[in-house]
């Protein structure tokens, strides 16, 4: 754009240079202006959570300026963090997420290695199948899965519905396909010479995986782990369908079903709970933003 203007008015070059940089400054100013607007739009809900969480119920119902805290108090935080029920939700969520992440990585890393490196009969089809599975949403499967687990309970007498550990079986269906898919991408980008050298030196396939592929593809593994954790922490539909007793609930469902009692909304506590529930992913994101973004973009860009 700027170059074109210079060409047309070559004689007044110095003046045009000035206007060029002026154009640039204005473009920058507009960029910052709109970015600020969008940042406000993005941050209003979390900031409003924080504002409300610091208010007492009396201040909330007094309907003063909602964007300001006049008498900040920590009573909501103290109330929730000393309530056994809330701690139970948090504990269930943490337990489920940690187990699911471990399971996911144990399943998807070897599978991705086999699919990326050890071509065998049907491996290409299986890789495509894994990708297609990733596209099947939870809202398509929750009803048949519910029925399947109910039948399983009738046949074997092992009751899985309304137990928190049923989520350990279900969540991997959401995390494993994507993690396998991005790990296939990462493993495929490792030069062939590396594992050929290892095989020639007498390493077994398992050793090639643990000694060479996993260390080299560590960024991918971290990204996949973060993905698996965020998905299992945030999942809402499955725990809503499969768990009902208050001692089996995970955090998102727990907050919604126990803190909202009929028409009585204790908004101070709800917002505190929501903020505490959003904290673990936010903290991980704050420290590992680059891995988080790598995982996000790898899904669609790694072919």
């Amino acid at each position: 754009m700027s170059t074109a203007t210079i060409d047309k008015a070559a004689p007044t070059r110095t003046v045009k240079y000035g206007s060029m940089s002026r154009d640039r400054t204005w473009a920058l100013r507009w960029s910052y202006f709109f970015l600020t607007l969008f940042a406000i739009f993005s941050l209003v809900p979390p900031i409003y959570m924080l504002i409300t969480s610091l208010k007492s119920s009396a201040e909330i119902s007094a309907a003063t300026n909602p964007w300001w805290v006049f008498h900040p108090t920590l009573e909501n935080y103290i109330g929730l963090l000393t309530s056994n029920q809330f701690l139970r939700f948090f504990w269930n969520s943490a337990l489920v997420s940690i187990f699911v992440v471990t399971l996911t990585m144990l399943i998807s890393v070897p599978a991705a290695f086999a699919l990326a490196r050890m071509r065998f009969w049907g491996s290409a089809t299986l890789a495509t199948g894994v990708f297609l599975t990733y596209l099947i949403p939870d809202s398509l499967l929750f009803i048949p899965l519910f029925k399947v687990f109910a039948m399983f309970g009738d046949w074997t007498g092992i009751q899985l519905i309304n137990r928190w550990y049923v989520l350990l079986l279900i969540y991997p269906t959401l995390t494993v396909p994507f993690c396998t898919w991005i790990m296939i991408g990462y493993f495929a980008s490792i030069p062939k010479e590396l594992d050929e050298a290892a095989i020639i030196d007498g390493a077994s396939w398992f050793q090639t995986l643990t000694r060479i592929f996993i260390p080299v593809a560590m960024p991918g593994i971290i990204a996949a782990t973060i993905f698996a954790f965020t998905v299992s922490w945030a999942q809402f539909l499955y725990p809503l369908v499969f768990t009902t007793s208050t001692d089996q609930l995970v955090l998102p469902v727990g907050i919604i079903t126990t803190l909202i009692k009929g028409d009585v909304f204790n908004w101070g506590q709800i917002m505190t709970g929501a903020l505490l529930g959003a904290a673990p992913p936010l903290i991980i994101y704050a420290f590992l933003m680059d891995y988080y973004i790598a995982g996000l973009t790898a899904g669609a860009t790694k072919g």
Partner: protein
Amino acid sequence: MAEVALQPHGVGATQAGRKRPSLRKTLKRKSTAAFLMTLPLIILIGLLVLYPAFYSLHLATLNKSMQRFIGLGNFEFLFKRETFWLVVKQSCIFAISAVLFKALIGFIVAHFVHNIPAKGQRKWRGMLLVPWVIPPAMSTLAWLWLFDPSYSAFNYTLSFFGIGPIAWTGDADWARFSVILVNVWYGAPFFMIMYLASLKSVPEQLYEAAAIDGANWWQRIWYVTLPMMRNIIAITTLFSLIVTFANFDIVRILTAGGPLDHTHIFATWAFRIGIEGSDIPLGASVSLFMVPILAIAAVFILRDVNKRGNEA
């Protein structure tokens, strides 16, 4: 590493003689090992994804007590119900408009972030991605509170501009707007990140060449940026279409389908009927209606992903 060090003793002695059989053995071992490594994945997908998916086809042909086969009876029943067509319409409005706005906002914001000096980009990107990081169930609660009928912070702010209290979740049209707004808020950052990554991969020379040819900013977007980003735009949009079409959390928490079923989409309505109304077969039939749209999107995504694979 220990094995590698030990190996020379054994191999060095009978290198020539052992080469052939050991190669065959490796091959043999390789396929078995590969199969064993993928076995958990195959079992997981087979038992907990494929089996339930096909089982829901069977479920959809049963009556409410799941004892009698009624063929397409559930579908006939659905076609006669007005609510069903309302849900179809709403799902399409919801998914299409939400994806459109997400893509548009993502595109614009990605350009603004790309415009500013590289040093500050990280900070802005970090802030703008926050909606995507917060679990949607948690952030929707914040929106629910922002939309509260009597304490809405938005209405408080708008009252200074003389705009009367808006029934964000009470009025059918406003409720649809609110649901879409929350979805756009949640999903736009994903588009922004994807577009930003792809904007960075457009070679600077193309813009220089376009500038020398006298292209204005609009022509540069239309003839350089968009064609270079076509693939990523297609994939991101289709991905998002699937996710948005199958959305559950946001609608469920914000309106639970109300007022008078005017914000129900397939997932929330299937939940209402199948789990809350315990008519599992009918719920399964409702969620099956998502399949055609998902399948079409999946076919296109697969084509694009394969194409990208071949190019690389």
